[in-house]
């Protein structure tokens, strides 16, 4: 099996403080790769580096053998490496359907056709409605997304991400802010969309990570502590210390 994403000696420094330090990581194609670690471990920063939203202080990132370290974030997305955000991120004043239609346009690099009517977007309608149905938002297609409940915003964000039909999906805490009864359906949805794709997922909900992930990487204080199956990493004494020793104050 090929390697989808490879990070080599990745470091990111903020004012002398390493948020990510010497992380080397390989994500195999067509697997679900979980990333766990206490708050502030550098998981979101790692995602920002992998998708070029931040430039690394050291190290390089390779996607399917290609060095993508210096690409623009929009270009990385168009290569098929698409991320979602930890804090729900939608286009507030656009309807749910328009959110998805923008994503479908984004797939084509975004449109500069200012001389054409919005009727030109009708060709995206069927696909948009399909995606909305997939995440259970059919009834909210015409609702301004800013006024949706938080859980629905998260679902909409998934729909926009899936609209790009990315080969690789980076999900930053997809379960955060969801009620307990939604965890099951979203877990199933991720399992479904992961078929034929590579998924990297940061998640605090350990049972979810355990059931979904093929491989798990543990980060703490910006450094990679362990990598392996769920059983392997949870048996690792360093991991146990990181979770129980240093950061018992959070979560």
């Amino acid at each position, binding site marked *: 099996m090929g390697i989808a994403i490879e990070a080599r000696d990745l470091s990111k420094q903020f004012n002398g403080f390493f948020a990510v330090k010497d992380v080397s990581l390989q994500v195999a194609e067509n697997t679900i790769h979980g990333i766990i670690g206490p708050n502030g471990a550098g998981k979101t920063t790692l995602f920002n580096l992998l998708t070029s939203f931040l430039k690394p202080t050291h190290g390089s990132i390779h996607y399917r053998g290609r060095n993508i370290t210096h690409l623009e974030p929009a270009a990385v997305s168009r290569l098929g490496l698409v991320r979602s955000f930890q804090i729900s991120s939608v286009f507030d*004043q656009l309807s749910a359907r328009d959110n998805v239609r923008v994503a479908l346009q*984004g797939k084509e690099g*975004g*449109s500069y*056709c200012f001389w054409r009517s919005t009727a030109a*977007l009708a060709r995206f309608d069927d696909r948009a409605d399909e995606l909305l149905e997939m995440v259970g938002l059919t*009834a909210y297609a*015409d609702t301004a997304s800013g006024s949706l409940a938080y859980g*629905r915003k998260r679902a909409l964000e998934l729909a926009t991400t899936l609209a790009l039909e990315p080969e690789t999906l980076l999900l930053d805490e997809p379960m955060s802010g969801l009620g307990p009864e*939604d965890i099951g359906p979203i877990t199933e949805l991720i399992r479904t969309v992961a078929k034929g794709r590579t998924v990297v997922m940061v998640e605090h909900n350990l049972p979810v990570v355990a059931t979904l992930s093929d491989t798990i990487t543990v980060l703490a204080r910006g450094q990679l502590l362990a990598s392996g199956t769920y059983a392997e990493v949870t048996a690792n004494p360093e991991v146990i210390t990181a979770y129980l020793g240093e950061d018992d104050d959070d979560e």
Partner: protein
Amino acid sequence: MLMASPATSPVKTPLAAKATAARRRQILAWGLGIAALAVFPFMVYPLFAMKVLCFALFACSFNLLFGFAGLLSFGHAAYFGIASYVTAESAKYWGLTPELSILAGTGVAIVLGAAFGWLAIRRQGIYFSMITLALAQMVFFFCLQAEFTGGEDGIQSVPRGDLFGLIPLGSHMAMYYFVMGVFLIGFLIIYRTINSPFGQVLRAVRDNDIKATSLGIKTRHVKLAAFVISAGVAGLGGATKALVFQLASLTDVSWQASGEAVLMTVLGGAGTLTGPVMGALIVTGMQQYLAQFGSWVTIIQGAIFVVCVLAFRRGIVGELDRLAKLPAFWRRRRAERRFTPAPRASTDF
């Protein structure tokens, strides 16, 4: 799939009917608007009517950036003013016909907009505004110092010339209908831009720049394109104004003029289609009809502005829009309540 969601939305079938009704309403609105423009110079001084239309274009252009791209430009007078100078120069000294002079002025505004936009969109928020202001001030001092702009005097007695070399525009009425045509072209450009695939992407970039980037959209290019279109339409307004008043002067390139575009847009309703036109009418009207109060105009204008912003946060047209949408909103709310299963305890999904 994720929840026992209301199976299909109740408005699926009458969608087509709704679309044709909306279309009919739209055609009616355009017809009424054009009719109002046609009789406008019979109700007020034609010169005043033309001034309103020139400033309406200016405000609409500002609104495209501010209301639809979320970019607050404090220097829009640069494009309005430079176009007015170039048009005056080409009509007076190069003997170009009015439509060509306007094209020349607008063209220069577009080039200037591309250059300044390229610099300004690198920064966000207040820094973007400051850069646009600083660049516009440079243009102001250039116009004050340069040879061809005539310094404090500006370029005076600009001939209006003959449209296409055929129709003399000397009379205010002839000039008005020419200006009305120019206005409609500019307004259509704005209308089309807002209601286009690009317009939707632009709104997305306004709402969430980072999310748009993550979807593969080159947000800088999108902003720059909007900036250039906006500068062009501002230039169109300024160019036309130079011919209307047969004058290009420092007033139109000053920061006060930039401020007026902000004022008109916010007063009329930022992010609405017709708000800036309404704002231009009100602000220009106040300046015209309150002129008898001398320097008090500014204070009265300021007071009205403060009251309006406090009372109608969305501007006049924005508030009217909201009122018009309220019945539909409540209907939707009721329908939703009827179709949604009993609420559950946690964050429902």
